[in-house]
């Protein structure tokens, strides 16, 4: 399956995103792919909407994992992005308004060299493709070829101190996001990982998927991807990464602590209080398939949790 090469093995490669701005007409066509509700919500009159898109070049391609990638159309039209809408079909039509340039990510907290990265800085890091399964807590899954870099590469640049026990990830809040006017979650969206989870070679910061820059609804311009945890842990459109000594609060945990734990590892044996997690529907497939422990990454990550009661630390 997936082979993880040590960082020394990574060939530095340049990436030259061909940033192209959608014309107004293309944007409308794009919006029309969403639901009617999304279309109304796009406020097409505000034509300054510009989605930065384009192919990423020079990344190191991934070896196939023996599972077919979800069609790009599905992966980019069926998105949980509550800052835009609680309806999964709507963000595709609305997120075009998200302003992704200029974009900065502040990295601070328990680090020796706090630093604010421009998105251009992150795009210059050596990029690689990783084909990961993505399992949503709602019971569906996809297979997505991400493009990005290991989180640990970013950590190296800021040098976490010995006090750094956790990492907090914070999503943007813009007035392009109508969803944050509703108090469904405690905005801004915040997620967290234990430092060893964050530094695990499977944990990525991604800037692209399917060979292209991330579509806005998928979390452009940079998002976290933690493949052995439920999808909501992989926070989108990051503006701040903070190394902390204490476990940070996380959005879904604050919303319903009995339903969404801090760890939220994919685990078919620990059900959500209101539904089973034993099976999942792979998008594009008809019949449900069994859900795998740690989403199939048990060999790589089970060691992070030895001695822990996963029923309690769900």
């Amino acid at each position: 399956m997936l082979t993880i090469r040590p960082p020394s093995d990574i060939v530095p490669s340049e990436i030259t995103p061909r940033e192209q701005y959608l014309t107004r007409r293309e944007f409308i066509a794009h919006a029309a792919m969403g639901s009617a509700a999304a279309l109304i919500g796009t406020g097409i009159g505000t034509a300054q909407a510009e989605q930065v898109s384009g192919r990423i070049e020079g990344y190191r391609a991934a070896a196939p994992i023996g599972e077919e990638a979800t069609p790009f159309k599905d992966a980019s039209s069926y998105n949980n992005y509550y800052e835009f809408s609680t309806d999964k079909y709507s963000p595709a039509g609305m997120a075009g308004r998200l302003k992704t340039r200029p974009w900065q990510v502040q990295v601070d907290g328990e680090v020796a060299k706090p630093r604010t990265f421009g998105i251009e800085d992150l795009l210059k890091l050596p990029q690689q493709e990783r084909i990961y399964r993505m399992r949503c807590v709602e019971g569906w899954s996809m297979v997505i070829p991400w493009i990005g870099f290991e989180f640990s590469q970013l950590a190296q640049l800021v040098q976490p101190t010995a006090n750094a026990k956790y990492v907090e990830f914070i999503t943007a809040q813009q007035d392009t996001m109508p969803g944050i006017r509703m108090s469904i979650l405690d905005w801004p969206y915040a997620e967290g990982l234990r430092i060893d989870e964050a530094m695990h070679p499977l944990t990525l910061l991604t800037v692209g998927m399917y060979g292209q820059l991330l579509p806005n609804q998928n979390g452009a311009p940079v998002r976290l991807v933690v493949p052995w945890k439920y999808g909501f842990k992989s926070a989108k459109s990051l503006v701040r990464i903070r190394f902390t000594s204490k476990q940070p609060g996380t959005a879904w945990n604050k919303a319903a602590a009995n339903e969404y734990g801090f760890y939220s590892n994919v685990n078919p044996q620990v059900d959500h209080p209101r539904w089973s997690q034993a099976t999942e529907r792979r998008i594009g497939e008809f019949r449900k398939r069994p859900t795998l422990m740690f989403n199939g990454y048990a060999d790589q990550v089970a060691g992070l949790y030895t001695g822990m009661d996963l029923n309690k630390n769900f």
Partner: protein
Amino acid sequence: MKALSYAKALVFLLCLGPLARLIALGLMEELGANPIEVVTRSTGTWAMVFLWIALAVTPLRHWTGWHVLLDVRRMIGLFSAFYALLHLTTYLWLDQFFDWVAIGHDILKRPFITLGMGAIVLMLPLAITSTDRMVRALGARRWVALHKLTYAAAVLAACHYLWLVKRDLSQPLIYAVVLLLLLLARLPLYLKRRARRSPARRAGAAAGSTVRPATRPVA
């Protein structure tokens, strides 16, 4: 009479609209990334919408005096049951593939499904007893009594929806509030009827009043 049957035909076609739309989208492969979820949700939503419309007929009729509404109520109620059955079939067949063990597990794990089942179990006898022959066989009084189950089915359906959403309660709350309003709208009618039915008892209960049939709602 002719106008009425045209109107009925039109309502019939309108009620088929949601199904036609699903079929059309399905044929064009436009049902989105998760078609089974879309079909489940769409049929569930329309079962609920038609049930709510059927419940709106009585208050509307009293306010507007449009008694013709009664003529389409049965059809709308039946369409509600029809979409509920499609909804159930989608779940049993497309979602679970008749895997009864999984279904049993799902019901235990997702109590909202039990509520939905309760709603369907209440709706089916109503659908079955909606032919003229059945109404006659039952007698109007018993038929009316039986059809009071509609309220229970609607409450169960509203709870079914409230319980299943992940976080954003706004949609199911809208349905619950509308249902509450629909039920409240019946209260004056109910009180009026009750007053008419037992004027002696009610008047007698009010101490010192002379026994006189109440002609207005006592509320």
